């Protein structure tokens, strides 16, 4: 292998690892999105008072709480 090929290999390794890491994070976000959707369905199926107390008991963050659907 020449010096240039070693150079390309070193930079490619870093690029591939960062890309792989981002792909793993993206896959995890998709899983969290699915989970959020399921929880939304679960919350919609529950009566209003019960749902409110569950959300407070869960102590959800601002980001998660904002996903709550408007009451029908």
């Amino acid at each position, binding site marked *: *292998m020449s010096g240039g090929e070693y*150079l390309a290999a070193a930079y490619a390794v870093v690029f591939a690892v960062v890309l792989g890491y981002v792909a793993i994070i993206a896959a995890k976000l998709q899983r969290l999105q699915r989970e959020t959707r399921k*929880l939304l369905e679960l919350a919609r199926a529950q009566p209003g008072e019960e749902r409110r107390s569950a*959300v407070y008991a869960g*102590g959800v963050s601002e980001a998660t709480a904002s996903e709550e659907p408007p009451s029908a």
Partner: protein
Amino acid sequence: MTASLRSLPGLALLAAVGMGAALVLALLVAPEDADQGVSQRIFYIHVPVALTAYLCFGLGAWKALRLLWTGEQRYDLESYVAIHQGTIFGLLTLVTGSIWAKASWGVWWTWSSNQLVLFLVLVLFYCAYFMLRFSLEEGPRRARSSAVYALFGVVLIPVSFLAIRLAEDFIHPTVFTREGPQMTGTMFAAFCAAWAAVTLLAYVLYRVELAGKRLDADLRELREALQ
């Protein structure tokens, strides 16, 4: 969306632009080394990645200290994510260093260089952190044990960093001496740009992973409350 999350897309864009600029500086602008030729340009990715690994391990230890000091459980996750990042960057340092070693010395690895061996020990030490963490049940005990282990590991950082200066062998090059960096101004500028870009990239990845893990924990708690 919280205020801290709102800044993430901007930071990610800045990191991407910074990495692009650093690549241009390192591969096209910086002059070629008279001794090693083109393979010396591995320096612009290998050293910033190594320094970022040290920073991440240091951050992990700092968060661990905060956990032990204040008892606030949020520092446990922050320490864990920083050490996770540090391990990834540490492994990258070993791989890029190995490629550079093959190009310059003709071998992938040499046990005679204290710097290399100590860095390997440091990375293996932090790999064992995950074994410890996942062998314990989630809770304050696991958080405290992980924090104490992370603090022990930070002792290895100055040892690893100074090993090159204390060692008798002269295989691994010493670029930063008491007289300053042993390189031209353009080379040093390219190095600084690469280090800033890699550090920013690591910071963005740290924040993204931390946000994901916090969201995961929130959702788990919400699921338990709803069921």
